[in-house]
């Protein structure tokens, strides 16, 4: 692991937004490195900066300061078109609201990234079909998104994110609009693709969902306050079982007891 180059490396990442009252810092000195094949859950209350962080990871936004190296390339000085290229080839996005194009059938939806990759029509169709097959929706190629369930739509979105064989999947609350059962189905897909070596970074509120990840990163007030491997309740029976859907703050363990358990006194991890 140490020998291979990290997929994501951020150093001293700052992001602040201009407000009438002056610059408002959202990210304060975030450092993180994610190796190929990792499955990372990013957690934290709303307003903690995790969405902004994900936007920067996804090359949709630029940091105010700091460095971001994606797949060995420094993103800081890339042009807009080069960023678009990264989003197309290196990153796959999965959103909370599925974000399929409503007028297009599932096959065309899945094939859409390939249009911008310059793949010809026949190959687009073949690869989109293959991906739909993989997520178990091979029979729905010609259906419109509004004809299938939310869980199925999210599976189509995953197929779209993966159709261009990216190295990295960024998922922003992919199960947020799904019930626990279909959420689990979707997570099973993520597990599967992660086993194939695709790096996954997933934002979630839900501890149950976060448990699929092998590593958990917790944001608070623009800082990473926790970064460590996922602890499973079975591994440590002394902990109470995690409650699904509750306020997650403090429920995921920090590795060192002196950093507090309830968000108080948490300091940014170096």
């Amino acid at each position, binding site marked *: 692991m140490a020998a291979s180059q990290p997929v994501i490396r951020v150093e001293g990442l700052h992001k602040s937004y201009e407000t009438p009252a002056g610059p408002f810092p959202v990210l304060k000195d975030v450092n993180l490195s994610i190796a190929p094949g990792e499955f990372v859950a990013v957690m934290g209350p709303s307003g903690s900066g995790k969405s902004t962080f994900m*936007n920067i990871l*996804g090359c*949709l*936004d630029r940091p105010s300061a700091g460095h971001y190296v994606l797949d060995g390339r420094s993103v800081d000085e890339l042009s*807009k*078109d080069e960023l*678009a*290229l*990264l*989003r*197309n*080839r290196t990153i796959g*996005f999965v*959103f909370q609201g599925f*974000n399929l*194009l409503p*007028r*297009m059938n599932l096959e065309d939806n899945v094939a*859409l*990234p390939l*249009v*911008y*990759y*310059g793949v010809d*029509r026949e190959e*687009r169709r073949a690869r989109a079909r293959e991906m739909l097959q993989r997520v178990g929706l091979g029979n729905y190629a010609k259906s419109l998104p509004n004809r299938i369930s939310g869980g199925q739509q999210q599976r189509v979105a995953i197929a*779209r*994110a993966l159709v*261009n064989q990216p190295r990295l999947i960024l998922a922003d609350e992919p199960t947020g609009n799904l019930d626990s059962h279909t959420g689990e189905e979707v997570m099973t897909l993520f597990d599967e693709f992660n086993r194939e070596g695709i790096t996954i970074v997933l934002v979630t509120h839900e501890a149950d969902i976060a448990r699929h990840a092998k590593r958990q990163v917790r944001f608070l007030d623009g800082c990473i306050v926790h970064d460590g491997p996922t602890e499973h309740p079975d591994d440590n029976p002394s902990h109470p079982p995690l409650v699904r859907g509750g306020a997650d703050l403090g429920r995921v363990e920090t590795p060192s007891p002196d950093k507090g358990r309830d968000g108080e006194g948490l300091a940014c991890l170096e």
Partner: protein
Amino acid sequence: MLAAMLGEAWHAMGANRLRTFLTMLGMVIGVGAVVLMMAVGQGAQYAVSQSISSMGSNLFILISGSTTSGGVRSGSGGAPSLTVVDAEAIAELPGVQAVAPVHTGRTQMVYGPNNWSASTYGTTPSYLDVRSWTMASGYPFTESDLRSSTRVALIGKTVADNLFGDEDPVGKTIRVGQSPFMILGVLAAKGQSLDGRDQDDTMLIPLTTAQRKVYGTPFQGAVRMIMVQAETASGMPAVEKSMVSLLRQRHRLREGVDNDFYLRNLAEVADSAAETARIMSMLLGAIASVSLLVGGIGIMNIMLVSVTERTREIGIRLAIGSRERDILLQFLLEAIIISVVGCFIGLVLGVGGALLANALTDAMVVISGSSVLVAFGVAASVGVFFGFYPARKAARLDPIEALRYQ
């Protein structure tokens, strides 16, 4: 990729058929109006140029001066100031193509039971050249007819119709006053002159015959007018100048004495008529262009609505890796498709309307390939021009904002 985008544009337009249709209608009406109006304008120009060329090109008309007798002035042509010899002298001037002295009048002509009155021009054979007049049948009179004042005549189509009906007039003899005249030929039809006179209601006879045997004149050799044709349009001012000074010299007019003749430049008349037609045609085009402009603004309006409606879609596309120019191209393509398809339908309707107007009315409507091409080009550029701003707006959207848009 372009094919895929065309497909998507088609889908997007199909998703809101009524709106697409109404937007297109703006272009249809605009282009249709431009094509039709340009056809009408060109028809008018064509009609004017027809009547101008029927008059003869590069023409001057010299008219005898007026006389005053007992305080009553005769009006132009009343004085016998211009003569056949003047005409012969003018013919020698450089830049003069042909000269035709004309002695005009009206005569009553009789053939069998029919009789008719028409303008009768006593002139020389060169008159046909000057007026660029051809024969429909028969042949013109000659210099020898002129020398021996033979009683021969050429008649216009109107005269032929009224005197002879379906009969062939060539070789027939008519009576003018008390004298018999043989019809040598019938002139080709010329139609109306610029001022609306029927140019075919005319009889041409040799000048000498007119002077000696029809009208009679106390001043032998005097003519009412001389038609002069210059070799080129650009040479007309020089010809005019030398002609005036020649005539003043010949008529022994001292410095400060008015000309005893009038000179009219028909090319100027023709030019102003052509200019009028051209301006009218431009005016029609300009009015029609306004509707094209309105159509273009309609496209822009709808594209802006479309961009707002599809903000989220644009965000998704940007997130999965479309470049700004892909988004730009996609929206531009939609605008261009709407305007080009609208333009095509407009062309068909406009040309159809013009053809219909041609078939149903006397109005001359001319469709030229160039006007059609221009209309098409303008419409396509209207699509690009008015589609560009919305497309750019779409392409410049912030992906994060766009994804958050509900």
